[in-house]
């Protein structure tokens, strides 16, 4: 690897940008490729798969033996609302490999007692997201039911291109939310990315069951990134 590539790669990793370092194992030369970069030849499919799965490996392409080292930011989940659903969702998501951060300005909800071992911010989403911005490797679930808390975070998630955005509430509630998000400047196409009602349809009734439905939806969204919700049932 040359030093310029090393420095760029490290900068990408610090900034949570996906990158693949392609090393030619025959001559040692390397090339850093980002998601969306135009790549020609037989490498296109391998690169697409690399960004999708995050798996590194060697490939033969265009008569060369290449090593693709895939550096994806680790996915994470931001939950807006320290509510009953979140109490189940946070530990389950952590087990499934998504570090969780719960944000809720209501100090009666956001307590360490209710959320042991969870990164918890008893602050407004505006303040927390200014410090730790959302990105395309972050999932956002807004479950407070309170527009004053949820709406800003949902708009921020749309703008950041979060790989998953879900919002709790009935179809009726969501219809009013759509109006508010349009007023905030979101496009109809953006708003169409929001999963609402939240969670895949498993007939979930209890808060814990809703959490399962939400986590399943997050996993599907992560594993099908870039494939665009084909066959999405919810």
């Amino acid at each position, binding site marked *: *690897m*040359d*030093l310029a590539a*090393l*420095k760029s*790669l*490290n900068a990408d*990793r*610090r900034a*949570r940008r996906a990158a693949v370092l392609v*090393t030619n*194992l025959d001559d*040692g030369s390397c090339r850093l490729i980002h998601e969306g970069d135009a790549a020609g030849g037989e490498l296109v499919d391998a690169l697409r798969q690399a960004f999708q799965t995050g*798996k*590194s*490996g*060697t490939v033969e392409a265009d008569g060369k033996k290449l*090593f693709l*080292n*895939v550096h994806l*930011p*680790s996915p*994470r989940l931001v939950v807006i609302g320290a509510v009953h659903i979140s109490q189940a969702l946070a530990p389950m998501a952590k087990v499934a490999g998504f*570090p969780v951060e719960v944000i809720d300005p209501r100090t009666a909800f956001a307590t360490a007692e209710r959320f042991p071992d969870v*990164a918890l911010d008893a602050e407004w989403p505006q303040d927390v997201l200014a410090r*730790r911005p959302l990105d395309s490797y972050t999932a956002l679930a807004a479950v407070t039911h309170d527009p004053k808390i949820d709406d800003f975070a949902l708009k921020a998630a749309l703008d950041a291109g979060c790989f998953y955005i879900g919002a709790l509430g009935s179809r009726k509630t969501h219809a009013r939310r759509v109006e508010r998000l349009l007023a905030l400047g979101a496009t109809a196409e953006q708003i169409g990315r929001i999963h609402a009602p939240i969670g895949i349809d498993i007939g979930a009734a209890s808060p814990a069951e809703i959490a399962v439905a939400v986590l399943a939806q997050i996993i599907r969204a992560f594993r099908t990134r870039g494939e665009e919700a084909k066959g999405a049932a919810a």
Partner: protein
Amino acid sequence: MDNPTQIDESRDPLQIAEHWVDEGRDVALATVVETWGSAPRPVGSHLVIDAEGNFHGSVSGGCVEGAVVTEAMDVLESRKPRMLEFGVADETAWRVGLSCGGRIKVYVERLA
């Protein structure tokens, strides 16, 4: 706050490699490029080595790091990358092996 989605710069081999280079050290990078069977570290794992034999990271569970460090010193001197292969089935080529029964290929190059 503990934030596991951020890179731990004090333990991250690629960040350490960059710091070492900035300090003017001669640095080699070893990368697991292929694995077979139950290999302890996944493809893409790194070990960084300087000319004094200091190292960070891992390419196995500690089984072959010593041999990789030795090879890396040669790579730093010759400036030519090298492909190493380790495994229990491969006793003739290497004295060290992987007790887990897996096999790994490690690419060692000088950062230049």
